[in-house]
């Protein structure tokens, strides 16, 4: 009993112990680099696909704005929830956050957007506003008139005999300009976000 008390007193009187006791600090406040932070630009050129804005779950968190040369996504702190969906959805790898890009490469995963055009033919009046408003149509057929008639097969949709016909659904970029211009709300664009994982081939690795 007496001996053990002396042992303890000697243990507590050691200078290292006293220093440790008085100046104890946990690890400094550093954030490891693999933590998902606010997305940062990687330096690659933004192609203005806007998939980051479409996949973002937080309102007002990401906007693609005009930078000095071309477009650039801008993250609003205070809105962004650091989920990393914009990093994954970007087809050009413009943003990075933590090790999301490395993980995607290793696991061969990708998020792909596709768009479906649904037209309610009972509501549609065949006015052709959607065809003329569509920015892809404008590039494909600059001659398209107010009625939405076109002899060009490269357009997404056109009016044929008073009815709207969707020709190239795969060209849709999901901008929803047609939804806004439709007077009866007949056209609806569904944005579909799918996650893919490519199988690892035999023999590789």
């Amino acid at each position, binding site marked *: 009993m007496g001996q053990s008390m002396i042992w303890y007193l000697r243990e507590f009187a050691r200078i290292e112990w006293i220093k440790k006791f008085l100046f104890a600090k*946990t690890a400094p406040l550093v954030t490891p680099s693999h933590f998902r932070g606010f997305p940062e630009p990687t330096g690659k050129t933004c192609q203005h696909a806007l998939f980051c804005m479409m996949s973002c779950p937080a*309102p007002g968190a990401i906007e693609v704005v005009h930078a000095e040369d071309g477009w650039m996504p801008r993250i609003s702190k205070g809105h962004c929830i*650091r989920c990393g969906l914009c990093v994954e959805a970007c087809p050009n790898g413009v943003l990075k956050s933590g090790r999301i890009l490395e993980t995607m490469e290793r696991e061969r995963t990708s998020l792909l957007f596709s768009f479906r055009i649904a037209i309610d033919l009972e509501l549609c009046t065949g006015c052709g506003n959607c065809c003329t408003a569509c920015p892809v149509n404008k590039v494909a057929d600059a001659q398209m008139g107010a009625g939405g008639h076109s002899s060009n097969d490269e357009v997404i949709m056109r009016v044929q005999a008073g009815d709207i016909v969707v020709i190239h659904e795969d060209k849709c970029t999901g901008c929803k300009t047609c939804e806004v211009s439709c007077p009866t709300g007949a056209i609806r664009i569904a944005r579909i976000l799918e996650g893919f994982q490519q199988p690892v081939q035999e023999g590789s690795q």
Partner: protein
Amino acid sequence: MTILQQIKNKVRARSIHVAYVDVGSCNGCDIEVLACLAPRYDIEQYGIFVHNNPREADVLLVIGAYTPGWEEKLAMVWEKIPPPKAAVAIGNCPISGCLFNRRESFVDPPVKKHIPIAAEVPGCPPRPTEILQAILLVRDAVFANWEGEHP
């Protein structure tokens, strides 16, 4: 500045009492504030003590998107804190309303409209390190030289 004032400054910056108030959050940020208390981040090693009484607090942590139930009440809590005092907004909700700030919702962010906010910590939820850093910065900005600024 007299020696007494210097001592007061030093002691004040070394003993921050924190009160937190949840004005309608999803509890995510509350959990992160709780993590600051745990040994991993150990908020008390900096002399910060969580004491949920506004009368004795120096720093008020505001968490949440300001639901209608807190109208008038949050300002009352803020007025009860004796100066020097500072309020820190924790998370996206008090800054922008985050996911709750949609049409037909009753929240009324930002909290800045209702009480003066000294620091904002963005994130959904913010990391305990970020919360700690914000409190430490507020301490240096508000409490470390209070006597010099208010003679």
